């Protein structure tokens, strides 16, 4: 016998639910007003703003030499200049125009491919599941970055191929996580009763399975945004991504690392990556807490 829930009749149910949800809420009330959430959202907003307005916000042309080579940070060049005399600040800002949209594209496509595979594998089971998971295992057997390098090198280094390679190495992660959510949702009574009431596979998936299994995948995708930026930076560090003179953070770090006494060339793009990846990770945490029935006591049971 299942443990009996608290005694409730209509009005009492409301009172008790309110009480419980208040009891369980964090010290700072809603997830969205917590300091870390606010900070991370602010950081993401600032970077998005910079990415959109980069052409107008940059103090100098990021692709052309505008000053003396290798100048340390000064009042004219806040982040200094690199070995070709380009303003580092402008290049860091311009870099967001590349990294952010590319990361979003990578995550969206990985989520799409992995999501469909995971959904079908979890819902249809047996052979479909077997094939899908062996494919996923195949990809996951390789270290992500090595495989991405191999694919990009094989297709020829370019931005497009870097994105393609990263989608290829990332989809299995989403497939797995969505598959396991679907497996547990599939047997829930509400899905079964949906079938009894006449829902076919499509209706069942769209109305019941997807909304209830999307949570963990959504959380993962926010964190994967940060990871995509890192991997993109790594690929371009190795010369396999966006071609020079494109201002891409990873490429900038690569150039700067050849002469670390000019610390500003590597540091600032590195800090850019750090701040945005951390912001995405914290956002992912917040979304997870938002969706977690135990820490909110409101939306999900």
């Amino acid at each position: 016998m299942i443990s009996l829930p608290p005694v409730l009749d209509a009005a009492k149910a409301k009172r008790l639910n309110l009480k419980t949800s208040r009891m369980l809420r964090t010290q700072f009330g809603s997830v969205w007003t917590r300091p870390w959430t606010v900070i991370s959202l602010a950081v993401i907003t600032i970077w998005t703003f910079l990415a959109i307005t980069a052409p107008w916000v940059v103090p100098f042309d990021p692709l052309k030499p505008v000053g003396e080579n290798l100048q340390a940070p000064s009042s004219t060049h806040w982040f200094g200049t690199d070995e070709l005399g380009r303003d580092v600040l402008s290049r860091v800002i311009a870099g967001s125009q590349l990294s952010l949209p590319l990361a979003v594209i990578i995550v969206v496509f990985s989520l799409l491919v992995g999501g469909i595979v995971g959904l079908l594998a979890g819902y249809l089971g047996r052979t479909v599941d077997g094939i899908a998971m062996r494919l996923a295992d195949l990809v996951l057997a390789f270290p992500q970055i090595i495989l991405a390098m191999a694919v990009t090198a094989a297709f020829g280094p370019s931005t497009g191929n870097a994105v393609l390679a990263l989608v290829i190495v990332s989809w299995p992660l989403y497939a797995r996580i969505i598959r396991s959510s679907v497996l547990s949702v599939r047997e829930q009574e509400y899905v079964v009763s949906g079938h009894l009431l006449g829902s076919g596979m499509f209706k069942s998936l769209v109305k019941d399975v997807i909304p209830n299994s999307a949570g963990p995948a959504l959380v993962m995708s926010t964190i994967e945004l940060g990871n995509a930026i890192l991997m993109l930076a790594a690929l371009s560090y190795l010369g396999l991504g966006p071609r020079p003179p494109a201002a891409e953070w990873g490429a900038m770090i690569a150039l700067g690392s050849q002469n670390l006494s000019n610390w500003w060339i590597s540091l600032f793009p590195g800090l850019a990556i750090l701040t945005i990846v951390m912001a995405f990770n914290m956002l992912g945490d917040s979304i997870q807490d938002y969706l977690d029935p135990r820490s909110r006591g409101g939306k999900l049971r």
Partner: protein
Amino acid sequence: MKPILEIDALRVSLPNAEGFTDVVKEATLTVNEGEIVGLAGESGSGKTMTSSAILGILPKGARTSGTITFEGTDLLSLSNSELSRIRGSRISMIFQDPSAALHPLLTIGTQITEHMRHHLKIGKREATERAVMLLKQVQIAEPRKALRSYPHQFSGGMRQRAAIAIALACEPRMLIADEPTTALDVTVQDGILQLFNRLCDETGVAVLFITHDLGVLSTIADRAYVFRDGAVVESGDTDDVLLRPTHEYTQALIASRAQSLAQERVGAEVQEGDHK
């Protein structure tokens, strides 16, 4: 009748965003030596919180007031380490889900003997012999074989018997049983209830038996307390409480039982038959 446990004006409050909510309100009850006292009521009525307060296993942040006197000591005033010496040895607890109470990766024998050796400081061989006696006492067949078995090899009823054996290992003065038969089939439940009766008669252990099932209450408890919303609304001899209830809540509880519904139905059909 000498009291072994006296709860006086117990108040338990749990924290929430605006302050505290009382989940137990001024509960007063007594358990005498060698008797079985039943706590009845629906979920959320405070009966489990009351028993958790006795052993100091309330949720984090809970506040208590009042006194819980056991063998002359106020349990509410004890520290956790002092309480841990009482838990399992002077007062033992049996839970609703025996699978949760038993470690899945240890044999039954290990679980009983470890427990005894920790509290009673006896050797392994002596502990094993006592374990065999305990398993016989709870009527588990082939006790020596059972000692080497794992919980998943037992049925639900046997697991509960094993949990009872562990609870009795250190010869406690009192057992707290929190809905121990709710998750069991009715035929298995019958056996466990008879076991409790026998154990109480044989060893003189006092039992605080929590249940929502009034039939079980009637079968096992000498005296009963009916809880509602954290307060005791009726108490007394079980027969008085269940056969001559004074409080309307108790009457409503009795009326909503399946047996009452069945009798209602039979009565209605007879009436219909008369009118035909």
